Each structure stands twice: as C-alpha cells, then as structure tokens.
C-alpha cells in the first residue's frame, strides 16, 4: 500500500506543490503567507506516505488548496489580478475529463484501481507461457483452427485453463508481490517491459485463433450454445 515511488510524493513534487500554493497566496503579507504555508511540507509528506499517485489527485490543484486554506483561515479573497485561473495543461484536463466520463474524479484514480487486475492478468499470462514452454502445453493456434467449431474450442480453452490453474495461481502471487514492492525506476522499467512482452506474446498466440473464430461466423453459434 505504501508505494513511495510515485514521483509527486517526492521532495520535488512536494516543493512544487508548496511553491504553487505560495504563489496563489502572493497577495497576502509575507508573514501571514509564511504562517499559512509553514505546516504544508510536513502535511504533504504525510499525505505522500499514505497515498500513492500525484498530490493533486488527493488534495486538488494547488490553487484550489490555497483558496480553501485562506477561506478557512478567515482571510479575504484575492482581488483583481488573481481572479483568472491559470490555464490547465492538456494532460491534466484529459485526466479530469476522461475520469468524469466514468464517474471518477480523475482517470488516474481509475487506473490505480485497475492495477491489481493488471497484476492478476500479468501473473496468469506469465505462468501460462512458462507452462507452455516447459510442458509444451500451449495450444497450437494452427491446430486449434481445425477443431470442429467454436464449441470444442471453448471447451478446450476452459480445460486448459483448469489444468493451468495451480500454475496461474503461483504466477499471480509473484505478480502481485512485484506490484506491491518498492522498486526503483530501473527495476520498474524492466518489470513493465516484461509485462509488455507477455501481453505481446499472448496476443500473437491467440490472434490466428480469434481471426478463425470470427471468420467462420462462429460467434452467433457460440452464443447459442451458451444461452440456447
């Protein structure tokens, strides 16, 4: 849970946030501003220790934080020049816009929720691939195309999944452990690349089968078998 490798929880990210809050309070006398901001670095450090992801996701943009802070402190709102909000960069806008589409404050939050699912998928793929290499159990996509229709393909895949289950479980455990570990940037890059390779191999293996199933107009037949 306490993955402190998220960039915005670092000293640099905290300093950036603090500087932005100070900037939003620029119209206040220096002493007042210093007082308001004095506890902020420690506060942000606590927040960063408890939550992964950018500080903005947890606390909102610095300008809004500053506005809320001064309002709660009983200080007057800034007049005139500070009225127009700074233009929001496109990645941030996308992050918020896409997120709202699916009922999340930001898309980043949704992605964070999906991480465990990715860990499970990654582990399963890894173990299925390993099992295939070791026991030659990986279904030959070419051979599968000669099976008599989608029903037997579906049953075959289910059977294969059942056999692979203990291996898959082992892979998932390793994958989740990796996902929750504190890795440095280099290690994370390696893990991400391995994940990409796994997904690539999986797609490559299944692609001919998927094409074959679709080409034979097999999907309606399959649905009939399931629901009919």
């Amino acid at each position, binding site marked *: 849970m306490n993955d402190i490798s998220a960039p915005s929880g670092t000293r640099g990210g905290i300093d950036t946030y603090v500087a932005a809050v100070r900037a939003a309070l620029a119209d206040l006398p220096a002493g007042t501003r210093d007082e308001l901001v004095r506890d902020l670095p420690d506060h942000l450090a606590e927040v960063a220790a408890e939550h992964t992801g950018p500080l903005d*996701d947890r606390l909102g943009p610095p300008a809004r934080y500053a506005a809320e*802070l001064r309002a709660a402190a009983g200080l007057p709102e800034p007049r005139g020049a500070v009225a127009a909000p700074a233009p929001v960069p496109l990645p941030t806008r996308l992050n918020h816009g896409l997120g709202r589409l699916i009922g999340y404050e930001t898309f980043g939050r949704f992605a964070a929720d999906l991480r465990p699912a990715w860990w499970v998928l990654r582990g399963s793929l890894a173990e299925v691939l390993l099992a295939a290499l070791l026991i030659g159990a990986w279904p030959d996509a070419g051979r599968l195309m000669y099976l008599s229709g989608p029903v037997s393909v579906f049953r075959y895949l289910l059977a294969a999944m059942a056999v692979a289950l203990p291996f898959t479980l082992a892979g998932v455990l390793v994958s989740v452990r990796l996902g929750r570990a504190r890795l440095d940037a280099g290690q994370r890059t390696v893990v991400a690349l391995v994940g990409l390779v796994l997904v690539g191999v999986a797609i490559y293996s299944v692609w001919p089968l998927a094409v074959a199933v679709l080409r034979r107009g097999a999907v309606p037949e399959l649905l009939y078998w399931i629901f009919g």
Partner: protein
Amino acid sequence: MVFRFTDYHRPVDTSQLLKGVLDLAVLAVLRDEDGYGYDILRRLRSAGLEEVGDASVYGTLRRLFQAGHLTTYVVPSEEGPHRKYYALNPSGRAQLTTSTKVWRGFASTMDTILSEGASA
C-alpha cells in the same frame, strides 16, 4: 483509506453544513488530547467527517490560534519531522463549552422544524 477529493459519486454533500461547525469539531477533538495538524485531520475523518478538506482543517487551526483559543508547542523528534502540536487553552475550553451549547440548541431546533415540516 478515505480519498475525500475523489468521492465523486457521494450522494449527499455535507461540505456546506460542515463549514459552520468545523471550529467546534476541531476544538472538540482537542479536548482530551493535544494533536498535530495531520493527526487532527485523521481524527475528524475517522470520527465520520469524511468530507472535511485538508486545507479547511489547517486554515481553521490557524484561525483558532489567531483568535487565542489554542496554544502550540513543538515536539522534537530524532527520526521524522518535528511536529507542531495544538492544545486548547482556557479560552479555547470556554469556547468549546459555549459552542457546544449553541450547537445542541440549534440541532434541537432543526429537529423540531424537520419533524413539524414532515407532518405539516
């Protein structure tokens, strides 16, 4: 963990109600035990005030301090940051007592209005 900023699908917005009583809430959580900023925030959240914003709590602490209801002291620490602790002083305790009475009276009045409104 409570992610208040991302509770996008929260059905009831209590933040407006909270603005008026945050002073009282902060004074109340300091009644039995002093606390530092983030600690106070955590107490409020775990007591059920999940909507309360970080900035609001810190700003309120400053305002209460300016009003002379709180004292502060720093607790040095070898590992981790030195923490600034807030404590109620006699003025703060008096304010807590008064505000509590006002709150109880107001809550009772609202209950009356609500129940009479429902039956009207």
